[in-house]
C-alpha cells in the first residue's frame, strides 16, 4: 500500500476467502456442535493460518506439498515453522504413531477378550475400506495409492488413516484427514438405517446377558503382547501401528507403569493439537478446491455405510454356527469409531428390545476395529509401497 506498508489484502484470492469460510465452519462444528473439537478446532485454525497470504507460516512447492528445508531456511523466509512440523512430525510418521500410543493407553480390551470372536467382527467391518478402494480406483479419478488412502477412511480410525496417507498419498493428506475426523461424528446418523436394512426384527431382538465375563489381569496383560507379536509376524508392515497401540495398552494394564500411561495421555493431547494444525496447514485454497476433494467427501460416506454392512453381515454369518446366538447389531460396532458405534448399537438394541443392554458387548468389536484398521493399513503398505 502506497509502497510503504505490506498488507495481505491485495494477495487474497477468492479461493482463500472460501477456505477461510470452511475453516470457520470446522471451528463452528467443533466448538458449538461439539464434533471432535480437539481436532476440528486446530484443523480449522490451521486452515486460517495458511489462507492468509504472505504470512509464510507454511510454504509450498509447485506441486502443492510443503517445501523442505532446515532451521536456517526459516530465518531466511524460505520455509515456515509449519514446514518443519510437517517434516519432522508427519513425514516421519512420528505424530500419528505416538498418538496411537496414547489411544492405546485409554483402551480397555476386556469386552474383546471376553468374546474373542469380536476380533473377527473388527475385521469384517473393514469391508467399506475395500469397496471404496475399488470404486475410487475404477472410477479412474484416483491413482491406486490414492484410492487405498481414501478407502482407509472407512476404517474409521484417525492415526492409521494419517499413517497410510502420509506414506502413499501425501498430497491428499489434508482433505482425507479432515474428512476422516469430521465423518466419525456422523456415524450415529449413518449407521442405524443400515442396521435396520440388513437385519430382521427378530435378530435385533436377540437377548444378550447384561454381564460380560470377568477378565483376569493376566489375560489383560497377555492380550497386547500376543496380538502384537502375531500381527507383526503375519503382517510386518502393520507393526508400527499395532505395536504402538498395543504398547500403550500394555502400559495401561500392567498396573506398574501408571506414570508412563499418563505420559501417553499427555503426549496424545500435545500431538493431536500439532496434528490438527499441520493438517489444516495443508489446505491452502489451491490444494483444496478440486473436484477430487468433493468426491472424497462422498466416498467417505459410502465407506462408513459399507463397513457397517460388513460388520453386520459378519455377525450374521457367525451366528449360523453358534448355539447361543449373538445379536448381530454388535457387528456394526466393528466400525472403529470408539465409543460412538458401540453407543449406536446400544440404542438400536434397546429400540428393538427394551430389556437388552448391548453396550458392553458392542465395545468388544468396537475396539477390535482399531486393530483391524491397523492391519489393513499394513496390508496396503505391503502391497502398494
Amino acid at each position, binding site marked *: 500500500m502506497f509502497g510503504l506498508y505490506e498488507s495481505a489484502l491485495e494477495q487474497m484470492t477468492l479461493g482463500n476467502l472460501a477456505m477461510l469460510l470452511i475453516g470457520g465452519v470446522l471451528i463452528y462444528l467443533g466448538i458449538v456442535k461439539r464434533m471432535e473439537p480437539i481436532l476440528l478446532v486446530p484443523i480449522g485454525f490451521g486452515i486460517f493460518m495458511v489462507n492468509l497470504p504472505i504470512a509464510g507460516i507454511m510454504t509450498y512447492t509447485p506441486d502443492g506439498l510443503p517445501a523442505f528445508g532446515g532451521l536456517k531456511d526459516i530465518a531466511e523466509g524460505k520455509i515456515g515453522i509449519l514446514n518443519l512440523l510437517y517434516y519432522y512430525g508427519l513425514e516421519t510418521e512420528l505424530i500419528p504413531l505416538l498418538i496411537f500410543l496414547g489411544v492405546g493407553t485409554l483402551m480397555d480390551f476386556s469386552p474383546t477378550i471376553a468374546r474373542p470372536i469380536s476380533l473377527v467382527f473388527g475385521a469384517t467391518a473393514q469391508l467399506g475400506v475395500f469397496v471404496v478402494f475399488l470404486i475410487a480406483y475404477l472410477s479412474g479419478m484416483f491413482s491406486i495409492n490414492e484410492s487405498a488412502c481414501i478407502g482407509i477412511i472407512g476404517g474409521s480410525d484417525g492415526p492409521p488413516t494419517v499413517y497410510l496417507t502420509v506414506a502413499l498419498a501425501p498430497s491428499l493428506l489434508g482433505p482425507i484427514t479432515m474428512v476422516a475426523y469430521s465423518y466419525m461424528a456422523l456415524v450415529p446418523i449413518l449407521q442405524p438405517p443400515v442396521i435396520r436394512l440388513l437385519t430382521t426384527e427378530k435378530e435385533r431382538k436377540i437377548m444378550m446377558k447384561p454381564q460380560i465375563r470377568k477378565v483376569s489381569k493376566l489375560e489383560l496383560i497377555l492380550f497386547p503382547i500376543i496380538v*502384537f507379536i502375531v500381527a507383526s509376524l*503375519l503382517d*510386518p508392515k502393520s507393526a508400527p501401528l499395532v*505395536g504402538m497401540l498395543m504398547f500403550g495398552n*500394555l502400559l495401561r494394564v500392567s498396573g506398574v507403569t501408571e506414570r508412563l500411561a499418563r*505420559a*501417553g495421555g499427555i503426549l496424545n493431547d500435545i500431538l493431536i493439537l500439532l496434528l490438527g494444525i499441520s493438517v489444516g496447514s495443508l489446505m491452502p485454497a489451491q490444494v483444496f478446491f478440486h473436484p477430487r476433494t468433493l468426491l472424497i467427501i462422498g466416498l467417505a460416506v459410502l465407506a462408513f455405510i459399507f463397513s457397517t454392512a460388513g460388520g453386520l453381515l459378519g455377525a450374521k454369518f457367525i451366528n449360523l454356527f453358534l448355539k447361543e446366538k449373538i445379536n448381530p447389531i454388535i457387528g456394526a460396532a466393528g466400525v472403529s469409531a470408539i465409543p460412538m458405534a458401540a453407543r449406536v448399537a446400544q440404542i438400536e438394541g434397546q429400540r428393538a428390545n427394551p430389556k437388552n443392554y448391548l453396550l458392553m458387548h458392542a465395545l468388544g468389536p468396537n475396539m477390535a476395529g482399531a486393530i483391524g484398521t491397523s492391519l489393513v493399513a499394513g496390508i496396503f503398505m*505391503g502391497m502398494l509401497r
Partner: protein
Amino acid sequence: MSEAIWGGIQGLISGFANLHWSNPIMIGIGCLLLYLGIKKDFEPLLLVPIGFGAILVNIPLAGLMEEEGFLRIIYDAGIMTELFPLLIFVGIGAMTDFGPLLENPKIFLLGAAGQFGIFLTLALALALGFPQRDAVAIGIIGACDGPTAIYVTSKYAPHLLGAVSVAAYSYMSLVPVIQPPIMRLLTNEEERKINMGVVRKSVSKTTKLLFPLVVTVIGGLIAPRGLPLLGTIMLGNLMKECGVVGRLTKAAENEIPNIVTLLLGISIGATMDGRIFLKPQTLIVLGLGFLAICLDTACGVLFGKVMKVLTGGKINPLIGAAGISAYPMSARVVQREGQKYNPKNYLLMHAMGANTGGQVGSVMAAAVMLSVLKGMGVI
C-alpha cells in the same frame, strides 16, 4: 507391481521366513523384561518400554530401526543427542533433597568411596581385553545411575547400550537383595549397632541455594566433560530449592520425565536387535556390572569403617553402603539393616546424606573418568 501384490500375499509367510535365529530369542528376552517389570516390579517404568522396544525391533521386515524407521528417529533425536538422559536428570535433581548431606558434609566422602566399584570394574574390563571405550561403559554400570550410564554408553559405546541399560536398571532393583549380605560380611555385630543419633543442625536456605551453583562451577572446572550431567542435575535441584519456579519444577518432576522415560525406554529397547545383543560379551557385561555394584557396596562399607575409626566410633559403617547412587532405595536398605541390629537406631537421615552424596559422587566420578580418558587421548 504384480510382484508387490504377490509379495503382499506372501507377506503372511515372509515375516516368518525372514526370522534370524536371534529374533525369537530376543523376543523371548523382551517378554522376560516385561515379566520382570510387571510381575516382579523391577524398575517397571523402564523395563516395560525397553522390553517392548526389544520385541518391536526383532520383528523382521518391519524396518523400525532402519534409516527412516520411526524408532530410529526417536533414537537419533533423544539418545544420540543425549537429550533424553539429561532431561531426566533435571527431574532427578528436582526430586533430590541435599539437606541431610549438607548437615554433615563429611558424609560426602562415603559418596565418593561408593564409586570405587566403577574404577575397579573399568580396570577389570580392560584386563579382560575389552576395548577402552567399551570398558568405560561397563564400568559406569557401577555408578548405579540410569541417566549417567545411558549418557556415557551412548556417547562412547552405543552398541552396548542395550546391555548396559538393562544391567544398570535390573541391578538397581536388586539393591535390596545384593547389599545386605555384603554389609553383613564386612562389619561386626558391634559396629552395626552404633547409634548415630538424630540429625540436629538445620541447613539454611542460602546454603541449599548455593550448593548446586558451587558444585556446578567447581565440578565443571575440574571435570568439564561431565558438565552436561552435573549441570542438569544441579539445575533441577536449584529449581526446586529456589521455590519460585514451581510450575517448571513440577513439569520437571512429572510430565517431562514421564514422557521422556517412555520414549527413552523404547529407543533403548530398539537397540537390542538380536544380531547386536546376543553375543558372549553381553553376558560378560552383565556379570561385570553385577560385580561393579558389589564392589561399590564393599568399598563404601569399608570406608565407613575407616571413618568410624577416625571419628572415634561415631559413624556406623552400614551407612557406607548408601554411598552408591541408587537413590533412595539404598538408604532405605541401610535403615532396615540398622534397625535389625539396633531397633533404636534411626539411620535413614544419615543414609540419605550418603545416598545423595553418592548421587553427586557418581556424576563426578563419571565426569572425572571422562576427563582423564580424554586427557590421555583414549576417547
